[in-house]
């Protein structure tokens, strides 16, 4: 899509249109194809002929017409091959949960949420959930999704195709998940948005440190879910977390694209508006019930963002928040961050002792982050030869070029000092 304004107009409409078409005609997989073609048609026609009076209606009409065409050739082909498309109704259609029979008109908001739940269906791998969410809900083309994940377009097309087939095979009806499983399914949705954000913010591979479009897309989708479920604390927490983290984006890379650690960042380059919004969101969420992991992570990000300088950081509070987080969502990354906070409060040696315990965890032993943190703490403790070795060990274990450059530079600096 070339014209940015058309894209801005189309992207929020994409899930509404897909929702309307699937709700009316079914065929999630084929309808998704038809909607993409309608979006492409709009992207070429609207800049030339003008935007129709009712853009959403236009897209639905074009997509429905295209769906008819696609189904027609699909059915004709099947008939030629003498294969009939039959499927057995899943049990959930025969005995739907009582709360699934909701009367009244479904809104566009419901449709978008249902699509998110479908795309993040537990039958799919995380990679497929992410790809499908970006295409079906985010309105990105396969080429754009492929570019964001640095894989060939054909690979991404196959991944999305398989994901749609699995959704179809799973027989999930176009409806909200039953109340009993809704919290768990929403957790999967938030996790996918979190992964998209992280992929954009801290790219796991490739030459560029930040793939900002992915982070921006994750924030846009988190905003959308927050608008649909404004009273859910974890949704608010995730939106706050992404805003508060992304606020530091500009300061995070130096003039040559190198990574700048938070302690050395120019805080005047932090996005004050995003910080204010994130802080307001997390403050409202924390006041309204037990805090989940996204809220706690957002609270930690807020403490960092509110510190006028690295020295002014309220580390005891960050340490306390990590301790809370460890209690509800214990994982090695949380423990690693906790160790950093402990080192800042009680000294590098205490932090290093915690790291020793962590390095026996197989999930973390080969992770570059463990070695990078060890390097920093050893440097803080004044043990430069060991710090240098740790930085080099970290550099060997990351695929991200900017991170490799950063770690090797830290190691080199210590060697020169010596």
């Amino acid at each position, binding site marked *: 899509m070339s014209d940015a304004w058309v894209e801005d107009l189309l992207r929020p409409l994409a899930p509404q249109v897909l929702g309307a078409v699937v709700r009316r005609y079914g065929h999630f997989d084929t309808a998704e194809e038809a909607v993409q073609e309608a979006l492409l048609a709009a992207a070429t026609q609207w800049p030339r002929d003008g935007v129709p009076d009712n853009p959403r209606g236009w897209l639905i009409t074009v997509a429905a017409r295209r769906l*008819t065409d696609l189904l*027609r050739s699909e059915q*004709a082909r099947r*008939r030629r091959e003498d294969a009939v498309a039959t*499927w057995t109704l899943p049990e959930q259609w025969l005995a739907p949960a009582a709360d699934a029979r909701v009367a009244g008109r479904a809104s566009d908001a419901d449709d978008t949420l249902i699509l998110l739940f479908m795309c993040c269906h537990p039958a799919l791998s995380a990679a497929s959930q992410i790809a499908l969410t970006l295409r079906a809900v985010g309105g990105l083309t396969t080429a754009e999704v492929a570019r964001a994940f640095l894989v060939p377009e054909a690979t991404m097309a196959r991944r999305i195709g398989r994901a749609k087939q699995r959704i179809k095979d799973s027989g999930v009806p176009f409806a909200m998940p039953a109340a009993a499983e809704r919290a768990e399914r929403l957790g999967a949705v938030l996790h996918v948005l979190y992964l998209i954000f992280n992929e954009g913010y801290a790219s796991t591979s490739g030459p560029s440190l930040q793939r900002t479009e992915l982070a921006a897309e994750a924030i846009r989708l988190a905003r959308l879910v927050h608008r649909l479920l404004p009273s859910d604390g974890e949704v608010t927490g995730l939106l706050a977390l992404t805003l508060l983290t992304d606020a530091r984006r500009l300061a995070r890379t130096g003039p040559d694209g190198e990574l700048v650690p938070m302690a050395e960042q120019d805080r005047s380059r932090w996005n004050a508006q995003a910080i204010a919004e994130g802080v307001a969101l997390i403050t409202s969420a924390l006041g309204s019930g037990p805090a989940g992991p996204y809220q706690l992570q957002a609270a930690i990000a807020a403490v960092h963002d509110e510190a006028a300088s690295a020295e002014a950081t309220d580390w005891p509070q960050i340490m306390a928040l990590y301790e809370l987080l460890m209690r509800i969502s214990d994982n090695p990354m949380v423990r690693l961050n906790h160790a950093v906070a402990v080192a800042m409060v009680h000294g590098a040696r205490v932090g290093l002792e915690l790291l020793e315990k962590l390095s026996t965890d197989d999930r973390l032993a080969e992770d570059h982050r463990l070695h990078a943190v060890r390097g920093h703490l050893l440097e803080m403790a004044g043990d430069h030869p060991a710090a240098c070795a740790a930085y080099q060990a970290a550099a060997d274990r990351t695929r991200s070029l900017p991170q490799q450059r950063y770690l090797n530079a830290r190691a080199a600096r210590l060697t020169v000092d010596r």
Partner: protein
Amino acid sequence: MKYMILTYASQQDYDGMAGKATGKPAWSAQDFAAMGEFMVAFNKELEESGELVETRGLAAPVHTRRIAGLINGLPVVTDGPYAETQEVLAGYWIVECQSFDRATEIAARLAKCPVPDLVAADAYADVRPIAESGADLDV
């Protein structure tokens, strides 16, 4: 007394109406507009006479799900069960009027609907009395 007037079309007829010749001729924009105009006037007249209960047109036959296997309790769904030349229900009117003959008169006026010649040659409508109660179905 209530009657149902039923009209039929194949997927190929729908294709033609959508402007694509796949076995039947493609309708021109004027053809399509003329039919629309006729139907609006036809329905309006029925409404004004108080005889129209409801009228609907159905989406193209490819958008059909057939649910079979109802008897042994294992429903099996077939997407698009019709061959593209098969004539299937395309639209209906439910009218409430004096007699079967009056309903027939109403249905016969559909013959005046302007459609391309080749389509007109095959077109037909059925009129069927609607059972008002279980007793009507007793034989």
